[in-house]
């Protein structure tokens, strides 16, 4: 074996035995985090329990709103003369205000429901892409 061959053999051995640098410990988990499927969001679906819950809530709110009217009626029945026309005005104004509030609540519920349904559909469309 001449000098050149001896060099080559040593170089080969040295190159083949070069130690491998250890893999950074977080490398594989970082890649896995990047390729993991995005968490699927359950699309919102209206269930019977949602309707019952909404109706119960509406009933409770309506009761709260109409309770002052009951109080005015009681005062009227007690025939306190000072209240006179004032109770009539209160009844008229409060009734209108209460009806308006209940209507506003229903409209708000519809808007919120439509909003959630729309965003669920949009997300499903995004997922499909």
């Amino acid at each position, binding site marked *: 074996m001449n000098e050149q061959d001896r*060099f*080559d*053999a*040593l*170089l*080969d*051995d*040295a*190159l*083949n*035995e*070069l*130690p*491998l*640098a*250890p*893999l*950074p410990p977080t*490398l*594989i988990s*970082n*890649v*896995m985090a*990047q*390729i*993991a*499927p995005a968490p699927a969001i359950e699309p919102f679906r209206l269930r019977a329990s949602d309707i019952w819950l909404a109706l119960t809530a509406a009933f409770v709110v309506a009761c709260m709103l109409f309770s002052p009217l009951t109080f005015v009626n009681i005062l009227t029945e007690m025939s306190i003369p000072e209240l006179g026309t004032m109770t009539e005005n209160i009844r008229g104004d409060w009734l209108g205000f209460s009806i308006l509030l209940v209507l506003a609540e229903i409209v708000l519920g519809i808007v919120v429901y439509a909003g959630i349904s729309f965003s669920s559909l949009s997300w499903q469309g995004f997922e499909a892409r």
Partner: protein
Amino acid sequence: MQIDERLLIQRAQRGDTIAFESLMQHHAQFVYNVALRTLNNQREAEDLTQEAFVRVWKALPKFRADAQFRTWLYRIVTNLCYSRLPRLKNDLNALDTDDKLELADTGQRVETRLLNSELKDQLSDAIKQLPDGYRLLITMRHVQGMSYAEIAKAIDMPLGTVKTGIFRARRALRTALAAYLNEL
């Protein structure tokens, strides 16, 4: 390609992340070492390795089962090295092919000798001093044990360029280590 690896690839192509993780476990250290030796920077090598595997995952459905996975993987790694080291491809292209060069593609040597750690340290330092292209070639050849033909496919260069590059890289290493090797 081993049967196990082929099965893992098929499962990963169907979206099985566990199978892909196993594939990655098998190749990541070699990919990282090729990147580390080529870029000479730990942080960049880590970034490149991560990016390479994310690209592999995305492109895996298009991978043909009859192709060599390792060659395909290193093609992605090399393309990322090209984008990070803009001169690398030009340097490799500039290697003129030496037709008289006859390098036997005998693969890895089976016998190993006990080499002292000082020589390994000297060699590691000498490799760091090599030009980028030589570092890439010598690492693929000796760390990953790839054949010349496989390297040529992976880096998308003619076989002659690969042989010339490795020959010159070894010559440069021999020169750098001459004094030390003479003492052995």
